[in-house]
């Protein structure tokens, strides 16, 4: 009878919407990762998925901005008590957005038509790709259910996966003879550091919802 009264109040409604937008970002992140990784190691032709991939990444970027705007409004209306949740969400949407960015990087590698090694090496990459895809699904579920136990388990698995990646990178760096891996990796890290410096400076130029985005670059390229 008094439902309408309760609907009027409560600080959760705005945050609920933001949580839903974040979950959608995770779903889109998985989609864009699967598409990009399949183009690299799964045999999918890059030109077939290019439009969908870029469109999904653009949607991720736009959702991130919408979430940030929503967070500003929520914080302004509800005040200091909501700040911890808002700060956590600011950080989370950045992570979700990066999944889209890195997937695009994977796609660019696929487009360059590189040789990833023998059949065993490619097979190992396919398995790793499948594992990440499952991580993404499980992360979505963990977050949605706020399951502490499941999250702890997943974090352990991800840690082991990261160690395995580091180990393989180390092996590739130590390959004798002409080895371009160290230079590629160095350039990659240089680019990341430069990007982060750019992101920091963007805070002076760009409004909060567009932090880390560049004013003169089209959204589809960011």
């Amino acid at each position, binding site marked *: 009878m008094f439902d309408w*009264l309760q609907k009027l109040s*409560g600080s959760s*409604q705005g945050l609920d919407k933001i949580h839903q937008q974040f979950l959608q970002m995770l779903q889109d992140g998985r989609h864009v990762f699967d598409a990009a990784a399949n183009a690299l190691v799964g045999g999918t032709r890059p030109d077939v998925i290019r439009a969908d991939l870029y469109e999904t990444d653009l949607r991720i970027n736009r959702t991130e901005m919408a979430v940030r*705007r929503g967070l500003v409004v929520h914080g302004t209306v509800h005040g200091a008590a909501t700040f911890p949740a808002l700060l956590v969400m600011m950080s989370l949407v950045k992570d979700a957005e990066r999944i889209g960015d890195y997937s695009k990087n994977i796609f660019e590698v696929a487009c360059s038509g590189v040789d990833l090694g023998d059949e065993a090496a490619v097979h190992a990459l396919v398995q790793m790709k499948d594992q990440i895809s499952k991580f993404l699904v499980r992360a979505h579920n963990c977050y949605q259910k706020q399951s502490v136990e499941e999250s702890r388990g997943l974090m352990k698995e991800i840690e082991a996966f990261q160690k395995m990646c580091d180990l393989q990178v180390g092996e590739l760096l130590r390959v004798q003879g002409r080895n371009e891996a160290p230079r590629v990796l160095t350039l990659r890290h240089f680019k990341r550091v430069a990007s982060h410096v750019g992101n920091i400076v963007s805070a002076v130029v760009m409004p909060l919802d567009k932090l880390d985005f560049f004013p003169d670059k089209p959204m589809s390229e960011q």
Partner: protein
Amino acid sequence: MNTTPPAASSKPGLAVTLARWGLVLLLLYGFLIAIHLMGGSIKSLGKDAAKDLFDGIKNPFAGLSVGILATVLVQSSSTTTSTIVGLVGAAKSVALPLTTAVPMIMGANIGTTITNTIVSIGHIRQGPEFRRAFAAATVHDFFNLLTVALLLPVEMATGVLERTATSLTKLFVTETTHGNFDSPIKTAVKTASKGLEKGLAALGLEGIPLTVVMLVVGIALTFICLVFITKNMRVLISGPLERAMNRTLGKSGLAGILVGMVVTIAVQSSSITTSLLVPMCAAGVLTLANAFPIMLGANIGTTVTGILASQAAETSAGLTIALVHLLFNLVGVAIFFPIPAVRRIPIRLAEGLAARAQRSSLWVVAYVLGVFVILPLVGYLLF
């Protein structure tokens, strides 16, 4: 990393919500009692003493200055306008004259914008963010200053607002509503107010001391009730408030005016509405052009407090001055909103000032002291 679970929402219980609504109604009752008490206080002063008191602010510039200073001091135009309504609506022989009160109401409109400006100063260490925040705060000031600059001379020359409000009052108020018949609410307000007055008189107070105490109690009660109505209403309507703000972020125009109006009527404070806009503009998620209509709506919405207060006034003059406040803001919106080129005037002035304020904080100090302290003080002392 743990965050607020989406499922575990923080919706308050029904009992808490109902209790809050009950409290708001009680505070509203207290607010009306306070207004009636203020009217009564002037009555106990006597006709001649009241005339002497109000003669000191007969000059429109003095009235305007008093309106600004009083609002700056209490940080609430609702308190100032309600007090003015209470004094204008007192018994005819002792009431604050309508013509004297009109510039005071205009002054209250200017004074209220200092709250925003103070909020924006919180961003002073962040250059571009401060520029956006300060522009958002001062665009409201410029609108009010420009509207007063245009309408006060017109009002002084023609009395058009006062005459129109008087005609409107005659339309709304008949002998039955403001003459012999008192509504149950008014009777309840009168009874409590008289009880309070008798209680103060029982302390041995009479004449001027009684008037002063009643006036102080009335103003304090008005202020306290409005503060708590605002606090509770802000919690009660937080859901729709957030949704409304989210929807207006990318929009300009009439929707913004409507949102500003409705939110302000609900929380009974234009400062709350406009202060919400400052951080959003500072963060850059709301543009100044889109915030401006919301501020205009807040200016219209805040006049409802005066209309509400007039319901507790002794005479219909209380409603007339409340309608002057409404008309003043409506005319201001009609001048500055419809034509984009005119709309841009206060926006550009605010942006220009904010750009200077970003370069040197002396501009901030000079502006705040100049508009809200020195000018009204000079105006009051000279006139």
